[in-house]
């Protein structure tokens, strides 16, 4: 335990922001930046993919389905290497590792977000679409003013879970030497040499604290949303079922 505290005292700056004032930014700051920006950029793409998958037109739904299956079937590490080789080819100049990682995360997360959005849209009663169309809204209006707002509200917990998994995915930036948290820890380990267990258990704890807090937030919101949704049907029954869920 003493060793771990020593490691924190000596290296907290490296773990938190890398060599920032004197060098490139890194550590936890980059991990959070990558995952946050990644999910924010991936979200609109995910919505488009989901709408394409739900579309009755095959020229939209088939490519979208193919993209989702390819992403689900190929390891993230393979995607990272593909981006690592292809993006510089397209741009005709070398690209920073952090950009490579961001591009990969956006592609990867958008496919998973698309599945979440699709599930949310399909979870809505079909009467919503019928009613919206009956009062004269166009397809676009129905989708963006009626269906999506409800679907996204219901999907907030799932989106937070996806954010957690994107934080965990950034650890793979290590393989292309992106200066994020795992990379920082491996540097510390390489400097110390004698305390690998202490360094990596510390690394695991940092990830654990952040991700567990977010997971708790997702669970809390899930319960709240379930309560609100069921509110009109019978608040007492909903409270009972939510409390049952909370207890188990």
């Amino acid at each position: 335990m003493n060793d771990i505290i020593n490691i924190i005292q000596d290296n907290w700056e490296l773990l938190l922001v890398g060599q920032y004032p004197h060098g490139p930014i890194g550590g936890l700051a980059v991990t959070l930046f990558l995952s946050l920006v990644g999910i924010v950029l991936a979200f609109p793409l995910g919505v488009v993919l989901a709408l394409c998958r739900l579309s009755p037109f095959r020229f939209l739904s088939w490519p979208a389905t193919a993209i989702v299956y390819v992403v689900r079937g190929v390891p993230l590490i393979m995607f990272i290497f593909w981006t690592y080789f292809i993006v510089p080819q397209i741009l005709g100049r070398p690209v920073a590792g952090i950009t490579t990682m961001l591009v990969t995360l956006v592609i990867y997360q958008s496919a998973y977000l698309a599945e979440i959005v699709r599930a949310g849209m399909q979870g809505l009663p079909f009467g919503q679409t019928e009613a919206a169309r009956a009062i004269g809204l166009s397809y676009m209006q129905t989708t963006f003013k009626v269906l999506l707002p409800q679907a996204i509200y219901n999907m907030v917990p799932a989106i937070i879970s996806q954010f957690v998994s994107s934080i965990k995915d950034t650890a793979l930036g290590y393989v292309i030497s992106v200066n994020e948290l795992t990379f920082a820890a491996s540097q510390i380990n390489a400097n110390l040499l004698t305390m690998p267990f202490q360094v990596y258990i510390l690394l695991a704890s940092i990830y654990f604290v952040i991700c567990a807090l977010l997971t708790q937030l997702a669970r809390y919101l899930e319960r709240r949303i379930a309560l609100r949704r069921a509110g009109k049907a019978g608040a007492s029954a909903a409270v009972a079922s939510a409390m049952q869920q909370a207890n188990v």
Partner: protein
Amino acid sequence: MTIQLDFSLFTQPEFLGQVGKGLLGTLELAALAFALAIAMAVLIAVMRMSNSKACQAVAAAYVEYHQNVPLLVHIFLWYFGVAALLPAGVQQWINAHNSEFIFAFIGIGLCLGAYMSEDLRGGIRSIPTSQLEASRALGLSYLQAFRLVILPQAVRVSMPAIINHTVLLFKNTSLAMTVGAVELTYVTKEVESQTFRTFEIYLASTVMYLGLSLLLMWFGAVIENRIRIRNR
């Protein structure tokens, strides 16, 4: 951007053998990790559903820890961290027996086991408690009731989620390359650095991963269909 594709390297037995070895490593790693994950999943799920508070707490902590830390960090912790804590004799034995492979297998198996135990628990929770009560009233022991009555039904409910996580497990065996276990991604990088035929070799292994993942998804769907109880 024009790329000249040249797949002739796959006709050279040297590289073909390397890729084959990698593919075999990936399959071996996936199979072993899957076995460990399923065993852990059943154990943890049963512990979590038991009446003992201590068992519940241990199982919950196990699941939380494994779900909230990246798999890569688990593998590092096992390969670099835990390995250093082992007594010298054990270390020597493991180093002589492909330690990269062993620790990657442990890390992946334990981590995905946590996810699968949650799938299983979801399935178990969907079975009404009266089933357990009825089995107990009929004179089955707690474990018997679980094995003969609850689990067979729970497995059917949780099958889709377990299949999803099996595909994830298969994909994540690629992380073993970071500690140097010989599997498909590792071999791909190796062949790439020897031949510089980047696109060809990455295309080949991507297709292999995708093909095997789709095969797993299809196989899962078949099993799901086979074990479904009809007319209910």
